[in-house]
């Protein structure tokens, strides 16, 4: 709690500066954001566009920096050190950020598998979208969460202009926060340009029979579903994840707090209030562990915040994208992709 104003000020100022300088809240540059797609033959044009919002790709970096913030929070509040870190970050640039991210190798692999699995799922239901590669911009979710509404609206507007100029009529997002930002918070950014946005589960669930026909056997038989707050209460997407999980051959179990009454993973405040965030996520992880060892999430922030309790509680937290990757990814052949193109 001491020096909270300074910490919040630093977070907001750094975000705002990085976004203005590099078009990215963390100051990343280069190919980092599209590493996950290596080896996939992703088209660059089509009626619909996949939008990652960089949320899954951020996980390794966020995992490491959150640990650092929790450990050195009192130091980070010192103005001199903050200035030094900011300058160091600017000089070292992407190399330092990549080194930090590499230390979180496991979560990086999971994030990569999740995105590839979501891609495989979309191909399996005949909805292969295009991908903007390095042109894909950040969504502005962090800015919005921190109350920087004007900056977030500006970022949403840039997104709308980009999708429209590339000829896309539909955007398929992989995370609930980006969908909420562009559908709930700033709907006009896309709507006035004739572009719509959907969460990938809104395409997979209606065509789940095709997933059931193509899937391979998974190493688990059941899951307890953790509904993300945004998925359940903002977007109303609750049946879809259960339907797709069942199509993958999994028995679905429910925790005590579920669906509209789901409990938060603690993630949205991790950037500055690590201790409180961890207390919230521990309570939720314990509740889920009482129902099953296999926990299913559909949000990268939930994945990041519940997975640290895997060893302690004897659970495994799966992003739905990871399961899609295991069930469908290995079967994804060039023929499937071409078929998806015409679906």
């Amino acid at each position, binding site marked *: 709690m001491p*020096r909270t104003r300074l910490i*919040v000020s630093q977070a907001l*100022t750094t975000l705002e500066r990085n976004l203005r300088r590099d078009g990215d809240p963390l100051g990343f540059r280069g190919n980092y954001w599209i590493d996950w797609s290596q080896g996939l033959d992703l088209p660059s044009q089509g009626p619909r566009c996949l939008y990652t919002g960089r949320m899954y790709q951020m996980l390794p970096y966020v995992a490491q920096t959150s640990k650092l913030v929790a450990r050195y929070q009192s130091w980070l509040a010192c103005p001199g050190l903050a200035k030094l870190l900011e300058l160091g970050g600017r000089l070292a640039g992407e190399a330092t950020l990549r080194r930090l991210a590499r230390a979180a190798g496991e979560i990086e692999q999971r994030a990569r598998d999740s995105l590839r699995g979501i891609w495989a799922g979309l191909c399996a239901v005949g909805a292969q979208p295009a991908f903007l590669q390095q042109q894909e911009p950040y969504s502005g979710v962090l800015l919005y969460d921190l109350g920087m509404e004007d900056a977030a609206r500006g970022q949403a507007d840039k997104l709308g202009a980009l999708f429209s100029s590339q000829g896309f009529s539909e955007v398929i997002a992989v995370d609930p926060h980006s969908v909420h930002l562009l559908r709930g918070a700033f709907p006009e950014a896309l709507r006035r340009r004739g572009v719509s946005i959907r969460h990938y589960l809104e395409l997979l669930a209606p065509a789940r029979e095709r997933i059931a026909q193509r899937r391979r056997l998974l190493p688990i038989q059941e899951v307890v579903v953790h509904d993300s707050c945004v998925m359940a209460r903002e977007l109303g997407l609750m049946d879809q994840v259960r339907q797709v999980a069942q199509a993958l051959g999994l028995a679905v179990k429910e925790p005590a707090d579920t669906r509209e009454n789901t409990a938060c993973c603690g993630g*949205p405040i991790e950037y500055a209030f690590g201790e409180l965030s961890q207390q919230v996520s521990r309570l939720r992880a314990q509740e889920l562990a009482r129902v099953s060892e296999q926990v299913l999430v559909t949000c990268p922030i939930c994945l990041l915040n519940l997975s640290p309790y895997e060893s302690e509680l004897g659970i495994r937290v799966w992003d739905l994208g990871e399961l899609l990757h295991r069930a469908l990814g290995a079967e994804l052949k060039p023929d499937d992709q071409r078929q998806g193109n015409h679906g």
Partner: protein
Amino acid sequence: MSKGAELKRELLAELAKCRACRFCVDVCPTYQASQGVEPLSSFGRLQIIRHLLTGVLQLDDALSYALYSCLQCRRCENVCQSKGQALEICRTIHQGRVYLSPSYVKGVEEVEGDA
């Protein structure tokens, strides 16, 4: 009316709807995690915003912690609706941040100087 003044007026109007039943307190994840610190509950945060706007309180580290630690999970709103009210609690807290956040985006020395 300026944008800030308009936002302040809207916030006070929304806050006036709260009947202080406190049913939202128990379901707040940060209230649960802090083992019962009411300023870290949805109701506590609404009261902080009300008193900041009316000048009863001045923003300090403890109040900043309470306001910016809201998860925006909207679990409190489910309870509020079930009790016959329909406050947009998280939206109100978010708008409180919108009102305050621009003043945070400045040099570290300036913020330190305010402390």
